[in-house]
């Protein structure tokens, strides 16, 4: 039942690669942004928070459309790249990766900012008094105490990217091995009335997802930090 075609495997590989890189990049980018957002009350912060959240309210097709315009051969970025003899980014893996990062930004930033905001200043003060510098504090105190926020941010980002369809349809097309991700492929299978493939792929995805999530949640629960 679970014999997938090479095209299916290729799509799975592209999808996982996309989700993995997006999540990785976003956690790195979102952490300082979220920290800054949660560490004050200024109007600038509110504005940045709203800007960061914009991809939330833009339909993915809009985002994809404008990314296509910007990253494509005639766009600001794509055009510049072309003028340096490089390839523009529309319909490339790098292109959909950039779009994914933008698209999922709020899903990483918001839970992190919320987690940082709930942290309070005491743990950081304690760690400082015990000689821990900025990075040390971050790794040994902030990170473990906001782990829940990171798990939420990472799972939501990963998932939101996995479920990305509109953006990729616009910007990525459906180039096998490059931009044909699972969501596009399954759509394609359904459209081709290739129901058996669609079912097979979906079922596999479902089982895989359930076990992954089960393991992730078991682990994070096990190490849950208790509060009074």
């Amino acid at each position, binding site marked *: 039942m679970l014999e997938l075609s090479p095209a299916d495997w290729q799509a799975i590989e592209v999808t996982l690669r996309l989700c993995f890189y997006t999540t990785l990049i976003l956690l790195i980018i979102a952490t300082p942004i979220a920290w800054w957002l949660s560490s004050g009350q200024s109007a600038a912060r509110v504005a940045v928070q709203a800007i960061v959240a914009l991809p939330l309210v833009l339909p993915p097709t809009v985002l994809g459309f404008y990314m296509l315009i910007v990253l494509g051969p005639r766009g600001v970025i794509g055009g510049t790249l072309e003028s340096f003899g490089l390839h523009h980014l529309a319909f490339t893996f790098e292109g959909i990766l950039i779009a994914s990062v933008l698209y999922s930004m709020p899903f990483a930033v918001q839970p992190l900012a919320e987690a940082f905001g709930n942290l309070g200043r*005491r*743990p950081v*003060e*304690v*760690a*400082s*008094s*015990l*000689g*821990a*510098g900025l990075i*040390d*504090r971050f790794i*040994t*105190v902030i990170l*473990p*105490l906001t*782990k829940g926020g990171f798990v939420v941010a990472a799972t939501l980002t990963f998932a939101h990217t996995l479920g990305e369809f509109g953006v990729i349809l616009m910007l990525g097309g459906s180039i096998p091995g490059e931009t044909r991700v699972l969501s596009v492929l399954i759509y394609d299978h359904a459209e081709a009335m290739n129901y058996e493939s669609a079912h097979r792929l979906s079922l596999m995805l479902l089982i895989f997802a359930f076990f992954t999530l089960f393991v992730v949640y078991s682990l994070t629960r096990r190490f849950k*930090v*208790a*509060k*009074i």
Partner: protein
Amino acid sequence: MTLAIKARLKRSDFELDVDIELPLNGVTSLFGRSGCGKTTLLRIMAGLEKVRDAEVRFGNQIWQHGRHFVPLHQRQIGIVFQEHSLLPHLSVRGNLLYGYKRTPESLRRLHLGEVTDMLGITGLLDRPTDRLSGGQRQRVSVGRALLASPQLLLLDEPLSALDTQNKREIMPFLSRLTAESGVPIVMVTHSPDEVERLADRVVFMEDGRITSHESLQKTLTRPDSPLFADEGAVCVLEGSVQPGPNDGLTRFGNEHIQFLIQTGLAPQGKPMRLRIHSNDVAIARYPVEEVSVMNQLPVTIEQIVAFRPGRVLVAGKLRDGQTLTAEITEHSCRKLGLENGQHVHALIKSVALLE
């Protein structure tokens, strides 16, 4: 070498204005009513309260001056916060060792075993911090600060949740620590008992201002010391344990004065302090016979001041020049006809040897 702080801070209903230099040795007690700014002052010392134009100097290290600011983690300050501040994601051991691990081996003065034994928390090392009682948590906080071997200890009511026995074990340890390794301690407390036992000097605060800053000696004998709003005056006499009789008693004092105290309280020859509550001292015109009061010392009255309503404090000079104060009723004072220059006998019911 001093710890100098100069700062002004304004909050809605509160204004702090301090300019103080504290010697970098022994224990400085911060004493004052709830809300007077003690915690705020400690936070300024630590660099945790952002105050513009504040100046903080520790010996020859400038911690804050103008735009120059040394962050807390480079100041090597051990802090026991007033409220529960254990890192919730670490076990008791993890908390205790957090600062220890970050201290270069050569600077480590204390080690896990001795500290946990002293604090009575050795059995709790593997507990998560949310499975501790209030007092256990406080002891872990104290241990954590000590194990970081800081160059300054800021303790904000570090013993408030502890029972007497625990306090009695921890206080001498702190005294010894500051005496032996020279780490100065600034400690907030509401307990006069803790001040008497630990402090070398006391800083009194009121409404964000420092009202006085004096040696313990001075505080203890000053009749209006805020320390004794409750307890009454106390005086402290210096001396050492002398070879004495037997019978469970030892002599304490110097060539001029002699007290009988219980044996075994202190090693012979070491300079020590004797604390005497003025309330425990009676005055007799003549030596009293057949009474259980063992210590009767001749004194010359130097001063008689009204103290609390209906009571006076009689300061008498002992033969060695130290001052002993007796708190008696005005009634008795009048009845005995006490006046300056008179030679009388001080009857001392009980004394406490301070560690």
